[in-house]
């Protein structure tokens, strides 16, 4: 009897199995339902093994066939793109590619799709990236490209989705795509996202990122689920030629005496509480413990308000707003992206200065329109919190202003990446504005621990 393979909610099921140790090591006997079961990601090795053994099998798992897809017009890849594509093909169509932001990861993916010719699911971190990828794939592959996420549900043989949507949908469509591309794949190791790759049959896999390295060693999970690192190009190899040269300016601004007094009082209240309770933020659950304990007493609630107040003052001081205004004025003929840590600041600035805000609340059509108007120069400024942190292609942006952010190195590098797309004669400029004598100064130090910042020119604004 032929071995049957089925797909069941992100798993690969065989009602019966031949006597083969390799296959039996991949599957586990499911005593609940009387079948053999494995994670769907093992589909490729199972099929290859059955073929190697010359055993008949009936593939009822996959719901995809080779796809007639090719480049609408020829693309001449950059040398680093060509090298990455060949390395990935040489690894059997599985693996990770690390390229700096702006180095053309999307076009590399287009070339890979045209080469493997399989229905493809592209997974991206944000809705903005989803619409951007859809546009690029449609343009270069000349066929309709579907989207899943942000209220849009249109599955096509070529589909772009978000990590959040894919995590929920993989058990239903994990057998529909032969090629899985995870953009910004450093997200994949998150426990809630791993299933996207674990529960997918896709024999071909490509992980793309500018920052593969994770502090928790999650890059090993990427390699296990998508394949090994097959190509890497450093940001400094491409700067000037394929990426714009750049400059980072750090601007430290003082609080006004009145702001400083309010800041110090609120901070003392908050710090006093955590010291008294022995709460430490350098241990796991430290933050959760603070949140829980701060809600139990009036003193705790006052400490929590103190935490919020000192943070708000540091993030939105009047001196910061003055500096921002001067930057906007100085660069009013450029394209400027302003990054903040929270939506509240974005909307406050948007209302005050009548500048467009782009947050997770912005509907998909408006996002497209805003990015289009920014690209055309109709709008010179975009205010955003975190949604433009990653991957979104805004080649016209020359100036970035980090008004506030977390201590994450990755976030900071990705923000820098937004303004590095190459344009003739372009020299990118990243301002980092932080409040002196507040916790923000040390947060700023933390996030700048990356090689991209080692050659910066410090310059006062």
């Amino acid at each position, binding site marked *: 009897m032929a071995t049957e393979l089925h797909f069941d909610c*992100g798993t690969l099921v065989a009602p019966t199995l031949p006597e083969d140790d390799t296959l039996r090591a991949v599957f586990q006997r499911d005593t*609940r339902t*009387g*079948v053999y079961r494995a994670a769907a990601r093992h589909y490729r090795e199972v099929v290859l093994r059955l073929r190697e053994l010359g055993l008949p099998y009936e593939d009822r798992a996959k719901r995809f066939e080779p796809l007639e897809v090719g480049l609408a017009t020829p693309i001449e890849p950059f040398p680093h793109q060509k090298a990455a594509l060949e390395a990935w093909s040489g690894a059997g169509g599985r693996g990770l590619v690390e390229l700096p932001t702006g180095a053309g990861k999307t076009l590399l993916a287009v070339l890979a799709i045209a080469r493997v010719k399989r229905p493809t699911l592209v997974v991206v971190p944000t809705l903005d990236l989803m619409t951007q990828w859809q546009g690029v794939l449609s343009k270069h592959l000349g066929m309709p490209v579907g989207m899943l996420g942000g209220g849009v549900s249109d599955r096509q043989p070529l589909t772009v989705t978000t990590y959040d949507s894919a995590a929920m949908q993989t058990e239903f469509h994990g057998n529909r795509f032969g090629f899985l591309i995870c953009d910004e794949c450093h997200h994949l190791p998150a426990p809630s996202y791993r299933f996207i790759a*674990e529960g997918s049959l896709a024999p071909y896999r490509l992980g793309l990122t500018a920052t593969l390295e994770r502090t928790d060693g999650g890059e090993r999970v990427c390699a296990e689920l998508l394949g090994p690192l097959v190509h890497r190009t450093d940001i400094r190899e491409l700067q000037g030629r394929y990426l714009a040269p750049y400059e980072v300016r750090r601007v430290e601004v003082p609080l006004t005496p009145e702001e400083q007094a309010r800041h110090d009082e609120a901070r003392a209240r908050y710090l006093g509480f955590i010291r008294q309770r022995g709460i430490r933020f350098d241990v796991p659950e430290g933050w959760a413990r603070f949140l829980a304990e701060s809600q139990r007493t009036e003193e705790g609630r006052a400490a929590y308000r103190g935490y919020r107040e000192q943070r708000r003052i540091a993030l939105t001081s009047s001196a910061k707003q003055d500096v921002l*205004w001067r930057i906007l004025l100085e660069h009013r003929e450029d394209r400027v992206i302003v990054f903040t840590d929270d939506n509240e600041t974005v909307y406050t600035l948007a*209302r005050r*200065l*009548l500048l467009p805000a782009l947050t997770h609340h912005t509907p998909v059509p408006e996002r497209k329109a805003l990015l289009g108007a920014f690209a055309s120069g109709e709008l*010179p400024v975009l205010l955003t919190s975190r949604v433009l942190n990653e991957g979104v292609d805004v080649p016209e942006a020359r100036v970035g202003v980090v008004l506030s952010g977390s201590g994450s190195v990755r976030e900071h590098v990705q923000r820098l990446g937004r303004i590095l797309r190459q344009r003739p004669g372009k020299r990118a400029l990243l301002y980092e504005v932080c409040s002196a004598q507040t916790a923000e100064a040390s947060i700023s130090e933390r996030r700048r621990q990356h090689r991209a910042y080692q050659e910066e020119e410090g310059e006062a604004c």
Partner: protein
Amino acid sequence: MLTRELLLFRVRDGKLRPSFVKREDLALRTLATELIAEVAAGAGRSRDDIEETLALRAGAHTRPKVARGLVKLLVDRMLFDEPSEGIAEARATAFREAARVLRSLPSDATVEAYEARLSEAFPRPLPELREALYADLPGHRRLRGWEALTSAELLDRYNLALAQGPLFDARRLTLRAKAPELLRVRKVLRWLKFCRLVAEVRREGEDWVLEVEGPGAMLALQKKYGLQLASFLSVVPVLERWQLTASLESPRRRVTLVLDEKDPLVSPHGSALGHIPPEVATLAGGFDDADWELDLLPLPRHTGAAGLCVPDLTFRHKQTGREVALELFHAWHAGPLSRRMEELRSRPDAGLLLGVDRALAKDAQERALLEAHPQVVLFHGFPSAKRLRARLSP
């Protein structure tokens, strides 16, 4: 459902017990009534406004966490309008005009000068323009309606949500149905399938024990089935007499959720249980055989790669204990019959007979195939005892 910070429970001796509220608690009934009245009268108000009003009421209650939980369940049932047309367009126009003004400023212009130029550029006063700029944000949307319920029902939903919440940390659960009625078991099993869960089912005397988990739970997958397990719990109270345990894994500790029929849990899935077809009841009443006895409460069977069959009845051999289940397919079951035949081909199951209504075998070729199948009994109305005996003891 309730978010993690709204869950109330106690842990003692490694057992987690939700802190259920009493349906008769006058203070909570009063609060629930007030909250519901607030929502019922809230049509047209903004989401931020309603949520703030409800939050203030909740904060003032003597049991604020319970009150916030009730508010959460109510907010989940609210329906808000879509953004008004034209807001995004008006916003885009404002931004384009503001960009023009910004570019026209001299290099030493102040913010105040910019604001003065904006005021000249727009027909509307600047404060009004700022106020209307993001009127379509979710918090500004207007209440359009809500899924109504009574104060008692709200407390029932709250108790169920308290029990469902911890299941988000569970990988599996064990359910013991104590001497259940057939139709109640069927409803639970149907819901199990609907939740895309699998179960190892065994009978212990009159009781049924179900080890329930997700299909991939046995593998080292990161896939969590917490939401599906929580959803499954909602049907469990239908059983009337039951006990449920689930091992919960959180980074800090390992505890077991323990629930049973004495807890104030009410299923929202209604009391309708379906019915036993009269012909099945007739057969059960009249089936008299020296070798075989008939069981109306058969164990479910896993079929094919991922199918679940809940047979209509099971024949058990009195001497050997061998069991043969019978699943009936009526005229409206063409799809399920085709699927089951496929599953039998994929994974033969000698312990399953298919009773097929002749209405499903109109085509001559199809009829010949069915008649030749050793596990199929064709019937008009209901398979006769004689035909069934012939299949049971060939």
